[in-house]
């Protein structure tokens, strides 16, 4: 331990200056490190994230520049920009120590769907994203939910709220059919139907456990 004569305290840390006033300490006994050194670990992770962000922004600027100067308009570079932004978002979420598995699944999934829509718009909007990609994403979501219920069967009922969300989101293509945006309605209708069937099936087959789960979720 060491003594700070400015603060009149005994300092137990292993250091040369007082942590309160930064005055020089008089060493008089054993000192100790009672906490691990965090700064170095944090520094490395933060540096990596900042470097990747910098390279991503540089790549975006370079691709926009080359595209504009070769064609006098922005074309393919918008697609690469969208891809780089998607990569960066996924990278930052995955390398964030506080992110849970849901955020790490949800962000790449939604990001990929939005990116595919974006490609369709940039390439002149022929409607294939609304006709095929969105319903395909809903099928994939329902498949993932079924797999999760099987893997995590001890709390299968906890996925019912996501099935319900899937029904609500799956109704969006039905709305787009009425608005004339979706021109090939079959896949959209099938994906909405599969979301509804999944929820209703879970409710009926799940029995009392499913009802109890919904009671808790809707408790007012």
């Amino acid at each position, binding site marked *: *331990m060491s003594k*700070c004569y400015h*603060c*009149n*305290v*005994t*300092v*137990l*840390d292993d*250091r040369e200056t*007082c*942590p*309160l*006033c930064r005055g020089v300490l008089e060493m008089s006994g054993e000192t100790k*490190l*009672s*906490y*691990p*050194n*965090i*700064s170095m*670990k*944090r*520094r490395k992770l*933060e540096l990596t994230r900042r470097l990747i962000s910098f390279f991503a922004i540089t790549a975006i600027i370079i691709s926009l520049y080359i595209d504009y100067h070769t064609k006098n308009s922005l074309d393919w570079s918008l697609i690469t920009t969208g891809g780089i932004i998607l990569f960066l978002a996924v990278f930052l979420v995955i390398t964030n*120590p*506080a*992110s*849970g*598995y*849901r*955020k790490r699944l949800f962000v790449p999934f939604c990001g990929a769907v939005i990116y595919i829509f974006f490609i369709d718009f940039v390439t002149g909007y022929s409607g294939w994203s609304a006709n095929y990609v969105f319903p395909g994403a809903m099928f994939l979501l329902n498949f993932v939910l079924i797999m999760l219920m099987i893997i995590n069967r*001890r*709390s299968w009922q*906890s996925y019912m*709220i996501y099935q319900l969300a899937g029904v609500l989101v799956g109704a969006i293509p039905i709305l787009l059919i009425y608005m004339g945006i979706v021109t090939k309605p079959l896949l959209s209708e099938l994906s909405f139907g599969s979301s509804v069937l999944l929820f209703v099936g879970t409710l009926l087959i799940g029995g*009392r*456990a499913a009802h*109890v789960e919904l009671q*808790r*979720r*809707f*408790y*007012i």
Partner: protein
Amino acid sequence: MSKKYSHWERLDNTANVFPVIADEQTTNTYRIEMIMTEKVDPGLLQEALDMVLPRFPGFDLRMRSGIFWYYMEENGKPAPRVYEENDYPCRFINRNKNNSYMFRVSYYKSRINLEVFHALADGMGGFVFLRELCYQYLRLKHPDIRKKMGDALSPETSLNREDSFKANFRKRASSTYKVKKAFLIKGEKLPFKGLGVIHGIMSVSELKSVCKNYGISINEYLVSAFVYSTYRNFGRGVSRRRPIRIAVPVNLRPFFNSITTKNFFVMVSAEFIPEPEGREYSFTEICEIIHNSLKSQITREHLEEIFSYNVANEDHLISRAVPLPLKNLAIKLIYSKSALANTSTITNVGNITVLDEYKPYIKMFRGLIPVSMGQELKTTIMSYQDILVCTITTSFLDTSVPMDFFRMITKDNIKVEIETNGVFE
């Protein structure tokens, strides 16, 4: 799960706020540390946690989002893995990690740490769990104790999960919260969103003797020392419009005969307004102001008024029927106003007791609370036997307020030992 349908429970009145406002900056995760006399054996600590957790239904929980409210239900997964401490204290607990538990156990050298998300339990509730965990750990480490004590929970432990706010709510009351902005301490932050920790270790008997001379309690003395050091460093910014206000959590259990392990506390605020502005105050004058401010608020009637207002709001049909996303927006707005109404928080967990059989192996207890919006310097007080530890947690690089705080204490001839987490270079 032995039962067909897992147990579930609503969050208590205070806990409804925490999942809404908690993020990496405002983690609402507090820590209690137990310092042993010997190095921690991680294998035995894990075994102890695996044995104790199933006996604590109040900790064997996970949080879920309903359409109108958050709620907790039985977790049932294997206990979280104990690990060697490798990050700043009081980090955010993600409810989709850590086997969905809302607490974590770590160790470093001879110290065992329990970090708890505040929605699960307050300091008293967290401490009860840590104490049983350490009892079990010591029984595994020292078979002679196990032979004598057995593996049952100790009789001083409570597993009660009553929502004592609801149980003691009588009638609607008007709001007693201060919402006017307080003076807020500002300064250069530690790098990498770090959290600085400064423990001030002192003798309870020396403190008691000094406090007797001032005619105030230990809590009032330490709050006064904090106000004094803040005013010394930032006096020009303190005024009637921006007073120094210290939030002091009050444990309601003794007032209402409750033994719940859920949250059961309210916040009162000790206020200091310089009259006239810029005037010099002696420490004795500040002690008197703080003493009078706290004394008038810590009565059973006033404390009941405070939580009755909150419970009445929660029970109102309109607020119940609002979907959770909208409710969260409203809670965030209200919270951001009330968070800026206090300069800092000083929480006193009180005197910790352990059974005699375990005393030879336990050196000290310490508590840490995380910083939050507008309050980036907070204090936790905890005592065990004759050792009182006053822990300051801060996101500031500048230590002028802690420096004057501890200098004020040493001026009264109280010996102080300082230990930090090494971030103040």
